[in-house]
């Protein structure tokens, strides 16, 4: 009896001790330089798998590993705290990038040859994301996305509806569609983040691009800049489903794909999900007209994916070589085809037909970054917008926005004001 018990115990402990040996770790570094990329878009995992394979089969001196984990931000942050930095980091141009620059995690990539071929518009966007101006460039924009209004092309052609170019035209189009018994817009406001999509598309035309920076400097308030926007956003609500807060992003995509609405105000990133439900749907897009002057329109577009090189990367030359491969025209084109993305590189690329209505803006460089790229995520502006849409209290919303902004950005505001004080207010 006793023997049996102890044998059991001993056997288990042996298993526990032996298991690491059985597992082993297959790290074969046969004199090659190892380069590791972590990129944050899991939906593009297949593309990056292909890049990894092709790169490794054509390069003898470098071994490339690309991981596309879900929840990459958590993984990156936990790796940073262990001081375990990937060589190249693929992230979007949003506030996390701002934080990474501020934390001195990234290296200056302005010396990289390929930088010259990047569209200046996107470099300016990247520059603007720095909390306080710093020397050098820290991200090489890869692709951008665009947000506006997706519409059902066949439905529009059948009814002869025109693409609206001003806010009034937008509203009268909605009225027209509704009169025919069709739902103009579908909203998926149950997923709070979708509340930001129409907001972002409209704010670029109704408030200065650097609103948040002006607020940080104490030059303006959101109450001043966002009132018209909030009012106009509320005017769209009656043209959506009865209880838009009951439906999520997925419901809205499905509904739009099934022809339950004529339009869907969301970014180009939604098209794969929509097409998975109805592969035959003809989708096109147009720029959300939020102001009364059609020349005041601008496309809401920001850096969806860019690559940064970590300060800890030991072999910069190898990193450049990997980047050369990634930014080669034929590879970039494959990414664009797979993800309906907009390239950040100059040159001739074939864009998805779903971006037809926006291509003119892209060609002319008439683009403005997402304003939410400047909002700290913990402030949950999406939830504030959901509250606005539910309670329809513009004054309350604007007041909350201003007080919360001061509260959540306290350290940044102090940093900006210190910077202003020491560098003078030279914009």
């Amino acid at each position, binding site marked *: 009896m006793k023997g049996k018990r102890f044998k059991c115990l001993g056997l288990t402990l042996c298993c526990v001790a032996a298991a690491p040996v059985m597992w082993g770790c297959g790290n074969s570094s046969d004199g090659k330089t190892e380069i590791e990329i972590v990129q944050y878009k899991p939906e593009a995992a297949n593309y990056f798998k292909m890049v990894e394979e092709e790169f490794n089969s054509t390069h003898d001196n470098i071994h490339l590993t690309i991981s596309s984990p879900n929840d990459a*931000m*958590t993984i990156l*942050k936990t790796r*940073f*705290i262990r001081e375990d930095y990937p060589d190249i980091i693929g992230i979007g141009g949003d*506030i996390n990038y701002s*934080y*990474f620059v*501020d*934390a*001195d*995690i990234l290296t200056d990539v302005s010396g990289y040859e390929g930088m010259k071929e990047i569209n200046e518009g996107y470099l300016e966007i990247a520059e603007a994301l720095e909390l306080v101006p710093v020397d050098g460039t820290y991200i090489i924009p890869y692709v951008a996305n665009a947000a506006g209004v997706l519409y059902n092309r066949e439905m529009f052609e059948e009814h002869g509806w025109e693409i609206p170019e001003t806010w009034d035209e937008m509203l009268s189009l909605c009225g027209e569609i509704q009169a025919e018994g069709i739902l103009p817009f579908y909203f998926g*406001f*149950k*997923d*709070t983040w979708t509340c930001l999509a129409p907001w972002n598309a409209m704010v670029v035309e109704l408030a200065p691009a650097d609103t948040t920076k002006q607020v940080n400097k104490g030059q303006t308030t959101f109450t001043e800049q966002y009132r018209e926007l909030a009012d106009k956003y509320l005017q769209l609500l009656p043209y959506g489903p*009865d*209880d838009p*807060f*009951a*439906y*999520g992003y997925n*419901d809205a995509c499905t509904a739009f794909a099934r022809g339950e609405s004529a339009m869907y105000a969301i970014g180009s990133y939604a098209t794969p999900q929509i097409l998975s439900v109805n592969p035959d749907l003809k989708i096109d897009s147009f720029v959300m007209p939020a102001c009364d002057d059609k020349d005041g329109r601008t496309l809401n577009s920001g850096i969806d994916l860019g690559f940064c090189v970590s300060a800890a990367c030991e072999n910069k030359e190898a990193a450049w070589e990997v980047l050369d491969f990634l930014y080669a025209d034929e590879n970039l084109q494959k990414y664009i085809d797979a993800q309906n993305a907009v390239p950040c590189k100059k040159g001739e690329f074939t864009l998805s037909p779903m971006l037809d209505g926006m291509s003119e803006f892209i060609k002319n460089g008439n683009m403005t970054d997402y304003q939410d790229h400047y909002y*700290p*995520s*913990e402030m*949950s502006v999406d*939830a504030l917008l*959901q*509250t606005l849409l*539910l*309670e329809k209290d513009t004054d309350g919303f604007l007041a909350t926005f201003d007080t919360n902004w001061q*509260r*959540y950005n306290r*350290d940044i505001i102090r940093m900006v004001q210190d910077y202003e004080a020491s560098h003078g207010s030279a914009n």
Partner: protein
Amino acid sequence: MKHENERKRTFLLITIPILALFICFNTIPLIRGAMYSFTNSRGFGSHDVVGLRNYIDLFLDARVGKSYLFTIKLALVTTVVVNVISLILALGLNSKIRAKGFFRGAYFLPNILGSLVVGYIFNYFFTYIIPALADMTGITSLGSSILSNPNKAWIGVMIVCAWQAIAMNTIIYISGLQTVPEDVYEAGGLDGATGWKQFRYLTFPLIIPFFSINMVLCVKNFLMVFDQIIALTKGGPAQSTESISYLIYNNGMSGGQFGFQSANAVVFFIVIVVISVAQMKFSSSKEEQL
């Protein structure tokens, strides 16, 4: 006497290594984590020490206050609902019925379904199925999704939490019922104790330890509710279902408020410990009475 010493030594030899392991991977990281609560850290990069600022902010932050109210309300209601149902269920599954194995397997299922599945199904249920049923039966108050109504969304969260948690609590009650010797019932039967009386005066007193374990586990699980919030509402609508854990994770880990939310986590930890110790003290005094 020799025996007493041997016994004491054995207990000490068991306790010390296990306690050391616990301190190494629970207490020390907790202290290290608590250190961040005195900084304005974002979780990485450099940070400044800000003293007690985070703690002062915590008491002034309306959003945090709201999340405590929501979480406590949810935890109280769900704990009662879950314990009542799972106790009844455990008694049912422990009685002599047909196909017991099948029932026990089936009632365990909610606990294993991943939260993506649970979230999807219950969203569908609340968004499409309930309103359609309400239409058919003419109950207008259920005509729209309860998850889209800031005043009712917590009920939806409560239902899903309970639905998932009942399985585990039932298992604990069932294993508790196994410790009740058959002869207790036989003796009780002679005294004419059946049904409710049998449960109240014979069964329940014997499973009080399991009742208090379940109470503590429930209060803990529901005060720390997170998965169901992510799956169901992500804090909405209008921030009405932001639980404390949701705020700590979402704003601290995903967002840039790491230092502030660490302070929130420290305070939250102390609050739960106080609640639970009080609860354990209370139920152990009950145990002694019986």
